[in-house]
């Protein structure tokens, strides 16, 4: 990453002027997120991917198993009205999925992750791995599980979301890994179904996760500082001053218009309207 080498680590705050964060400010804002929303936590990088400008225990933020009950195309028009604000960024005005709306049957749930059976002759391996003893006990009057879990538990897609610090753009950056109803990995194509169409092709890209070293879908951060600044200005016009510790809440608030059906936890304690 050539850009990384030439960009020095910022130490002076430019949050109010530019909407950017220093690594230290990223940690301060992340601390506030994990404190207020305990479904999020810090994580360490995998060996060889350590981000030197961040403390080892504060490399990135992660929340796992976030439900995503609907595809973006299934959201009623009335639920989301899009409004273009400066910089070509589209804001979904209301994204909360109404709770009483019937679950949509997700198409294509069978077309995911076909295992390459031939390489290991896996069917044969699987059959041979059946534990006869366990089977007998398990089948005993269906007692081991609640009898009707398939009816009771409506399975949904889930996402693991992480937020890294992007040294080039000096903003947080969102990464997504999705799983289908049976915990098979979603393909990028399937994950694009959960990203607003305007972004799916423009700003959602596949790149190497800096802290994990493996490819993931990410929302490209080129406009994030501009968006952050936009919200800072809204707050200023309401006579309040945005604080650094609110930065990741603001970030997650505007990212929720990019992935409106992924129901991650962020508590907005700001009046942004």
């Amino acid at each position, binding site marked *: 990453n050539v850009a990384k080498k030439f960009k020095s680590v910022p130490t002076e705050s430019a949050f109010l002027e530019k909407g950017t964060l220093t690594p230290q400010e990223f940690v301060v804002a992340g601390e506030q997120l*994990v404190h207020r929303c*305990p479904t999020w936590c810090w994580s360490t990088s995998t060996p060889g991917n350590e981000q030197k400008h961040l403390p080892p225990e504060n490399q990135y933020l992660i*929340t796992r198993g976030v439900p995503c009950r609907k595809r973006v195309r299934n959201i009623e028009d009335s639920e989301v009205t899009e409004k273009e604000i400066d910089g070509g960024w589209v804001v979904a005005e209301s994204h909360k999925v109404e709770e009483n709306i019937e679950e949509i049957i997700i198409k294509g749930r069978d077309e995911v992750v076909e295992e390459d059976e031939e390489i290991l002759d896996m069917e044969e391996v699987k059959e041979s791995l059946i534990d006869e003893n366990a089977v007998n006990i398990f089948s005993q009057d269906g007692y081991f599980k609640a009898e009707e879990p398939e009816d009771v538990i409506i399975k949904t897609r889930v996402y693991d979301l992480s937020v890294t610090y992007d040294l080039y753009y000096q903003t947080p950056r969102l990464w997504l890994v999705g799983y289908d109803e049976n915990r098979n990995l979603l393909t990028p194509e399937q994950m694009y179904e959960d990203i607003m169409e305007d972004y799916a092709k423009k700003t959602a890209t596949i790149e190497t996760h800096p802290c994990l070293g493996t490819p993931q879908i990410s929302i490209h951060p080129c406009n994030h500082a501009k968006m952050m600044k936009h919200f800072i200005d809204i707050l200023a016009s309401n006579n309040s001053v945005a604080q650094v510790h609110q930065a990741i809440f603001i970030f997650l608030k505007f990212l929720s218009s990019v992935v409106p059906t992924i129901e991650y936890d962020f508590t907005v304690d700001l009046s942004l309207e």
Partner: protein
Amino acid sequence: MGKLKFHNISSAIDLSFWHILAKKKLEEMKLEDQILNINGYYSTNNNPDIAPVFRIISDSFNENAAIPSNSIRIRGLLKVFNTKEDFISSSKPPLLQKAAEQITSENLVSFILLVYADLKNFVFTYWVGFPVFNFNPVEYEELPIQEVNLQHLKVSLAEKVDQNSLKSIFGINKTGEYEENWGESDIICYLDPASSTDFPSSVLRNILGLMSQGKQFGSKKFLAIKNGLSSNPQYFTLERSKLYNIEIPETTKDFIGWEANSKGKIQAKTIDLRPQLDPHNLATSAV
């Protein structure tokens, strides 16, 4: 009254865990195949349409790995086989028994992850054993939740989340006061990762098993906490939590619990990570 059933808990393994495991196998473990300690965690949540899981994360080799402050860490085991044949032919019940020995009042849930890693093709064959006490169905009765001072309890729970000191099991007395020592308390409270309100998860099954082994018989009240928690009592409710009255059953040290695959069969699973390793492959499969 009715017969108590339990929602089984299944495993959810982070992709990055497999990457770390592959690296460790090549660089550190090599051909050693003794059982290693790893850990995981579970949480309560507000999503009744998502099956209860415990998570094995990239940091699972680190016993002090950061986990969300609304979560409970669990201690489990990992056995990596060197050959597919060893994986298949190894006797499974003693391995489950080993994991079961990790179940204590401090660690209500344990697991053993068996893996054969085909590192040339980056395909992992694995099977998770999640031991639970095997006993005959017990009678239970659901009691009105109003018996519990939920407001009081909420404040205690928020404080524990705030201080990162949440316990998987604790007690409350008649006035709703939190008691670390749950054995003698009026109501035994535990965090239940099965958010669905119809039945408790098998965490309760192991609590009943442990009490039975400790000769604590008689009927007891159990509060299953089935809501997501927060460090601020205003940000959550306990309204879907359930209060049960249960007679502690007679149990033996007989455990079951090999995990089923997505088709409901009690079998090993595979995960093929080749697409994950190749950004080009991912990019071309994208729109």
